């Protein structure tokens, strides 16, 4: 093999890489948060029988689930640009991720809600609970337990997909890696380190999520 590894240049640029990793985490957390909020609204719209809302929600969900993430990001960046709507790379990636997260989570939430039999609600009412109490103590806790795992997966997925920011010049972990490697031509070294960083980030997220689950659900999930 003809390749000599030069690691010191990677260590010299560590602060920039860590900064990129921070942006990655940042955009994924924000995309998850906004995605959850919108997904709740869309799930309500889909279960509600008012036609226009249900229609919008269905189109959103189907487009988000049936087209590639890369396409969504290009669309948000250059597609909207053709209309004179100019998003920065960060906002373009963020909105594409929010769009997709919302699309997938809508179905998760709807499934989670529908999995709880309506009789439980009437049972709680007959025990003298108010509607709010019934939701707070009976319905929502069960629902949360069912959607917790899919939500964690969706979050990990957003972290990994935010790497597509490389294709619109965003300075997250992949974009920063790409810039640094083209300045020094040390492709392998920089991308190996980036891969390790992604791995560590995902593992940390999964670890935190299982700790949280243990507290929330007292071990039973």
């Amino acid at each position, binding site marked *: 093999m*003809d*390749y000599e590894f*030069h690691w010191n*240049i990677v260590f010299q640029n560590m602060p920039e890489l860590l900064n990129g990793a921070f942006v990655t985490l940042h955009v994924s957390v924000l995309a998850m948060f906004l995605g959850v909020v919108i997904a709740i609204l869309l799930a309500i719209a889909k279960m509600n029988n008012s036609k226009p809302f249900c229609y919008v929600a269905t189109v959103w969900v189907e487009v988000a689930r049936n087209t590639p993430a890369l396409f969504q990001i290009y669309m948000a960046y*250059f597609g909207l*640009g*053709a209309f*004179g709507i*100019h998003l*920065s*790379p960060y906002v373009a990636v963020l909105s594409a991720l929010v769009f997709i997260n919302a699309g997938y989570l809508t179905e998760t939430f709807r499934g989670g809600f529908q999995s709880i039999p309506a009789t439980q609600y009437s049972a709680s009412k007959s025990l003298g609970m108010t509607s709010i109490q019934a939701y707070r103590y009976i319905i929502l806790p069960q629902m949360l337990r069912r959607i917790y795992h899919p939500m964690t997966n969706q979050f990990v997925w957003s972290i990994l997909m935010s790497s597509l920011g*490389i*294709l*619109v*010049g*965003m*300075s997250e972990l992949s*974009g920063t890696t*790409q*810039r640094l*490697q*083209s*300045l*020094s*031509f*040390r*492709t392998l070294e920089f991308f190996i380190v980036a891969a390790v960083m992604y791995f560590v980030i995902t593992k940390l997220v999964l670890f935190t999520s299982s700790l949280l689950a243990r507290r929330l659900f007292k071990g039973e999930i």
Partner: protein
Amino acid sequence: MIRKLATLVFACAALTSVSATADQLDTVIQRGTLNCGVVLDFPPMGYFDENNEPAGFDVDYCNDLGEVLGVDVNVLNLTWGDRIPSLISGKTDVVIGSTSDTLERAKTVGFTYPYFVFKFQVISHEDKNIDSFEDLKDLKVGAALGTTYETEYLAYADQQGWGRDNYTSFKSENDAFLGLYQGKVDAIISTNTNIATKLRSKEFEEFVAGPYVPNYDDVVGIIAKRDETAWINYLNLFLIHQIRDGNMNKAYNKHFGVDAPADLIQSLRDNK
């Protein structure tokens, strides 16, 4: 089975021992094909014409090189990031891809003498009235990710204390021009040659070329594997002949519409 394997191993060993004495130059001639990497995302040096075929100054250089070597030419389309891996892996014998000859990069690959010199320039919509580099202060500026002009602009912006909030990176040169065309950014930094080519098209008729990046010439070389010195020697002589035999001027004229400027030729002769 074992005998077959053993034959294979011997064959491989024999081949490697032959190729250990044959250098890249021999390999190319014996193979009869030159694998020439070009970045086809950087008009007029490399791009796809209306038939979706590779064209441009760098592609012409590949063909000229193939001709003097007496071999067929296989032009490979590379991204900026592909250039080094393609060389190291042997996918390309040489990359004629407007590669800035920085000392940092020369730790990884071998450079020839310069074969072209770019100036970095600003292009913007004519309303923006950019006369000097200072006028970029409050404008949204873009450039292609990982290019030397990006580095130069950012260094300048940092030095002036402008911050990086107004700066946008693009994945490629084409994306940067598309962003400018759409109005995502007010101005982009690119090479004078690329800008001059774009300005001749109908799409960019409302745009104007602005000031040059102060005190900077982008000197680019052909790259090959770092340890292939004999091959790099040959490529150096090839570059000298390109100027002497008039091929350089011919390619320049074809892609820029005018003769190569005397100062460009002189600086290439001086190997600056």
